[in-house]
């Protein structure tokens, strides 16, 4: 969509996965490296899009391919998602389509790992950039954010958390160097998060932001906590290596004690 070269680095944004993926590199980087990263994002769509009948995940759901014959990425993702289902006591469950637009097919189990894929794919993209010698960059896929290094020497990345009730405002600012920040909320696409345990739409929370060291895990945890509602923040606080913030429907914000937010000196 755009490809802007600046003195300090390169910024690129393209439509993918039904949203926009932005890569903001603050080091010199060859165009070919970013081309490879975006080619990876396209491959992820080929593999995992539940919107496309020809994706590997759709073919798997129709039993057209066997799991043993599926690409290695599919098997890895399904294994990781099983672990996340266990960790979240069923609140995150790809075998229950979290998105009701992904209709279960008669006779076939629905598979919708989209609550995990974006984060997982961005971690791989970060590894690609790291292998190419890029140390300072950020990637944002539709609101799931991953950062490495620094935006400028001596300054840390500052990530605004979208205010759920005001499109023009942020509700908090997360600060750090190597971060994974995932937000799940009901404000962008409506009440589309369904509790796999009850089949009912998630309630209580307007948004959940999870900060950790792995964006796939953070992504899944944010979805799970939204489903858990009022219990979500307590569950997140019990998870090692995770910090979180929830904003409830009554506009109450709750943070875990180590949440890395900017303390602003007024």
């Amino acid at each position, binding site marked *: 969509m755009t490809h802007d070269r600046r003195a300090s680095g390169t*910024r690129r944004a393209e*439509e993918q996965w*039904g*949203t*926009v993926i*932005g890569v*903001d590199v603050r080091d010199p980087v060859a165009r070919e490296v970013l081309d490879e990263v975006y080619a990876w994002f396209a491959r992820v769509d080929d593999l995992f899009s539940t919107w496309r009948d020809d994706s590997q995940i759709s073919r798997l759901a129709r039993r057209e391919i066997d799991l043993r014959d599926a690409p290695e990425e599919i098997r890895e993702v399904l294994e990781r998602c099983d672990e996340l289902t266990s960790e979240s006591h069923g609140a995150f469950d790809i075998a229950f389509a979290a998105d009701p637009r992904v209709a279960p097919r008669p006779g076939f189990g629905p598979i919708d790992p989209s609550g995990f894929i*974006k984060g997982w794919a961005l971690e791989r993209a970060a590894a690609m950039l790291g292998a190419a010698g890029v140390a300072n960059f*950020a990637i*944002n896929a*539709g*609101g*799931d*954010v991953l*950062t490495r290094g620094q*935006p400028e020497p001596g300054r840390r*990345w*500052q*990530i*605004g*958390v*979208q*205010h*759920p*009730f*005001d*499109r*023009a*405002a*942020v*509700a*908090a*600012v*997360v600060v750090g160097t190597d971060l994974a*920040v995932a*937000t*799940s*909320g*009901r*404000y*962008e*696409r409506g009440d589309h998060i369904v509790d796999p345990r009850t089949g009912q739409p998630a309630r209580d929370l307007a948004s959940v932001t999870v900060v950790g060291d792995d964006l796939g895990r953070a992504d899944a945890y944010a979805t799970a906590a939204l489903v858990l509602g009022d219990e979500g*923040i*307590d569950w997140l*606080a019990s998870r090692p290596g995770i910090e979180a913030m929830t904003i*409830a*429907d*009554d*506009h*109450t*914000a*709750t*943070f*875990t*004690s180590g949440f890395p*937010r*900017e*303390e*602003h000196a*007024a």
Partner: protein
Amino acid sequence: MRRAIPVLAATGGALALLANFHTRPAAPVASVAAVAPTTTTAPEPTSRSSASSAPSTTTTPSDTKVVDGPVASNDYGDVQVRVTLRGHQIIDVQALQLPHDRSRSASISNFSGPILRREALQAQSAQIDLVSGATYTSESYAESLQGALDKANR
């Protein structure tokens, strides 16, 4: 050079944030916009008996103004905020009343209350590199904060 995003620089954003404290669902922004510029001095603290009570404004030295919003009741209790303005800029927001039934253990959280006063200030002044949020669509990206940020930095 990088610069603050215009959409965040507006005082209106922070006022809209405050609007959300008032009622459930959120009060129209216009009702709050009417609160801020008021210079009527009301010496008594705002009564908490009515959700429709007029906001009180106290003029203090050095062009600083303190405005107490009306008490708003929702399903969870009463909420009231005090806003300090210098000119038209919000320099502080305090919660005067919060619902009590949602308090959390200190070991779990270090804050629980209406969305923070400090973050209300942040929205006006922070240098923000990226925005995390619920997934926007390709179509709504342009209207998203990240879309605005990308446009400003182009």
